[in-house]
């Protein structure tokens, strides 16, 4: 039997295990292996090598598995709660900012009228409005977002508030 037939058979045997071979190649290989003792032995060796990987079954430690499960469950629950908290915080902040601007728009006209009554220059009362009304309201609205950072409290690994 030509030497290249054995080489082709070995190559096909490995390819059949790794990436698969075409039906024609399979038929040729089966026919060759059936009549070639050397390639039949090699086919057996390849099959044994693959089966041998199953011999290395790792014994599972149920306690260790449970420990990992509990840690991951607990982290997932914490992250979920932190994300829900962060979401409500953002919504609350958005509402507070909206109310700040809505309230400012509502108070703008009465303040302008009062300033007119007291003969205050418009620039003066407008600066006072921004400094003593708008800015404090905005700061108060944003404060909860940065509360933990300002207080130096811990955050989780995502940088989200726990």
């Amino acid at each position, binding site marked *: 039997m030509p030497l290249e037939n054995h080489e082709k058979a070995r190559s096909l045997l490995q390819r059949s295990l790794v990436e698969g071979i075409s039906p024609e190649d399979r038929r040729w290989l089966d026919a060759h292996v059936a009549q070639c003792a050397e390639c039949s032995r090699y086919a057996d060796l390849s099959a044994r090598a693959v089966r041998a990987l199953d011999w*290395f079954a790792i014994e599972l430690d149920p306690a260790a598995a449970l420990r990992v499960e509990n840690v991951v469950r607990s982290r997932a629950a914490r992250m979920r709660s932190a994300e829900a908290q962060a979401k409500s915080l953002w919504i609350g902040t958005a509402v507070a900012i909206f109310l700040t601007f809505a309230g400012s728009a509502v108070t703008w006209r009465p303040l302008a009228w009062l300033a007119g009554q007291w003969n205050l220059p418009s620039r003066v009362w407008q600066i006072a409005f921004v400094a003593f009304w708008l800015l404090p309201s905005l700061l108060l609205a944003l404060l909860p977002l940065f509360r933990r950072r300002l207080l130096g409290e811990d955050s989780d690994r995502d940088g989200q508030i726990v």
Partner: protein
Amino acid sequence: MVAVVTAFSQVAEPESQSIARALRRRDSEFIGRMVSRYHYRLLRYLVYWTSRREQAEDLVQETWLRVLEHAGQYNGRLRFEPWLFSIARNLAIDHLRKRETATARHGMRQEDEAGLNLPAPDCESPFFAAARSEDAKRIAAALGALEPIYREALLLRFQEELSLAEIAQVAGAPISTVSSRIHRGLSMLEAALGGGADAA
């Protein structure tokens, strides 16, 4: 073949989608069940990488915490296993690099240029621990001598039964590279068994 692949996709898609949803929702019950379900496979994969049982146990936990952190990156369009194994792989590589750096700092011999080789197998290797026959011991020696990238390719192909494309996704390597790693690993195992058979 095409019919089989199509049928498989139809079965696999809803599961991968539900996993992606559960991860995004941080559904601790579902995630807990997944941890339990994949524990053995993940541990075995990491043992193949690290050759150390205790370190593999630690890395399993790290892998799941990393999965939670990066849950948004898994969209459920592909199977979950390759994504999970690729996270575990990155952690294992980082771990091995740290181990080798520590080894080098202590003046011990440095490994090859890939920086990922492991010490020669010894009787404490998990492969030897699992070997209960002469054949198994020969294979254990061959596995221990193989670089982790070859062991990984063999495990993912023949035990996890991932496709070459999925293994390429896990390993971040071209399919041709993955294929040649499997061929080389297989040849080494065959040589270990064949040598033993010849000797017998």
